[in-house]
């Protein structure tokens, strides 16, 4: 297993009270696998992802990535958030090279890689533009490039397309799959959209309410590379329906709508 969480729990101590965000999570992600974490808002998906990223420490249990325990941020990991968090005063290319600059690696060495990545997501002509001149989807594409520029082996994504409109979101799913296939990277993807999880993943892990655990581990059998048309097949919709039934309970418990 490339990523392994064993009985991971997290309690946030906030002043006098304590919030148990995750009760106990066991999960494994194989190298090169695309795994989604699916669950209602507030069930601890982000917390779990931040623990895997080494940005939060688990209060119980253990996390290993590539066999090494995760107790601080590591540069073999790329990360993406709901917001692209680009620096508005820097060009798209400079934004993509931001991790390289922070790591004090030689920029010229990575410049061509950054430009290649931008070309792969269709932003070849926008390298010198400022983020303000790009649409939301294009900015998130730039964020994909930034997450990949330092050649990480694990890509962690926290609802990266939740803020985008439905049409752009579909395009982004395709773009992400192409990048994942091309760069043969292990991916852990957080979402609360069932269709998105099914379309993207090899496996979908369903988390339930608070404090959360993983209540289902569903294999998605569709062949790769996937085209968006699979979303219209009965098999796809049946799988989505089954997942919906499985987690309906959890969603109702958390009082959230199902997308």
């Amino acid at each position, binding site marked *: 297993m490339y990523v392994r969480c064993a009985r991971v729990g997290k309690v946030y101590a906030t002043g006098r009270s304590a919030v148990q965000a995750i009760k106990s999570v066991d999960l494994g992600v194989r190298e090169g696998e695309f795994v989604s974490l699916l669950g209602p808002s507030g069930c601890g998906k982000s917390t779990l992802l931040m623990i895997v990223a080494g940005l939060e420490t688990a209060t119980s249990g253990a996390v290993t990535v590539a066999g090494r325990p995760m107790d601080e941020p590591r540069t073999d990991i790329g990360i993406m*958030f709901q917001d692209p968090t680009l*620096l*508005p005063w820097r060009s798209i290319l400079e934004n993509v090279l931001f991790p390289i*600059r922070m*790591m004090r690696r030689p920029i010229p060495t990575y410049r061509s890689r950054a430009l290649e990545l931008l070309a792969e997501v269709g932003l070849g002509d926008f390298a010198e533009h400022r983020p303000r001149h790009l649409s939301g989807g294009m900015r998130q594409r730039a964020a994909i490039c930034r997450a990949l520029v330092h050649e990480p082996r694990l890509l962690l994504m926290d609802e990266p397309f939740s803020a985008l409109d439905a049409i752009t979101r579909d395009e982004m799913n395709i773009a992400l799959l192409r990048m994942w296939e091309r760069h043969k990277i292990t991916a852990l993807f957080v979402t609360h959209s069932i269709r998105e999880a099914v379309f993207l993943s090899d496996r979908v892990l369903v988390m339930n309410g608070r404090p959360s655990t993983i209540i289902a581990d569903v294999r998605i059998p569709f062949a790769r590379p996937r085209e968006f048309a699979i979303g219209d097949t009965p098999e796809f919709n049946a799988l989505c329906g089954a997942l919906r039934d499985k987690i309906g309970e959890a969603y109702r418990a958390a009082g959230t709508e199902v997308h």
Partner: protein
Amino acid sequence: MPTAHAASEAALATQAEQRSVRTFERATPYLLPAATAIAFILAWEAFCYFSGVHPVILPPPSAVLAKFFRFFPLIFAHSVPTTLESLAAFLLACLLGCGLAAVVVLSRRMREALWPNLVFFQLIPKIALAPLFIVWLGIGSESRLTFALFVTFFPMLVATVAGLEHVDRDMLRLCRSVGATRLQVLFSVRFPSAVPFIFSGMKISITLAIIGVIVGEFITSQRGLGYLILFASSRQETALSMAAIVMLCIVGLVLYGAVALGERIMKKWHDG
């Protein structure tokens, strides 16, 4: 076809009319305040003329203007130290404000140690400290600068701290995940993000710097516009005193304008 011709002419006329209405609409934000100011000055002039109030009590604007031009070399000479000291106090306040803000944001310990004291210090009415600065630093420009700096730096500090902390949580996570040091985050992310906040602080600070220097000149100086205003008043030269105030307004406008211009340029850079 005369009717069509007339119609098109009428259309052209309305177009021209609309255009002039639009131009007027656009100009009102400038015209209205200017007209108000001119009306006020005319009323002031008329009041002085008809009421026969003594010019030492209230000189008419025309007399102030006459003094301003007649004594321009003198007034200008006095405006130079005031301007330079205001600028120096402002720049020192920027450095001190940004520096302290960086320290406070970088280190929680330093913040805990400094912040309550800075706020407490700030609660002292600053004017009450002016005599102490004279005792400590004499009556030279050091004591005026220190006083002006003391008046000026706090808003700068507060604005900069707010700016440095106004960074997206996920951006900070990204920085940590790529191994950025606190100093890297400070200079690559926090300070550039804080630019709009820093300029809001600067706009307050530049006006406070002038106030600080003028008050300092009231107390200690032998030159500068503050000194000239006080000196002229004590000689019952009210018109000259007001002429010096006119110069002070000009100095204030120029300095504030320079900061506002800088803000505009930096905003363009910041927003991309």
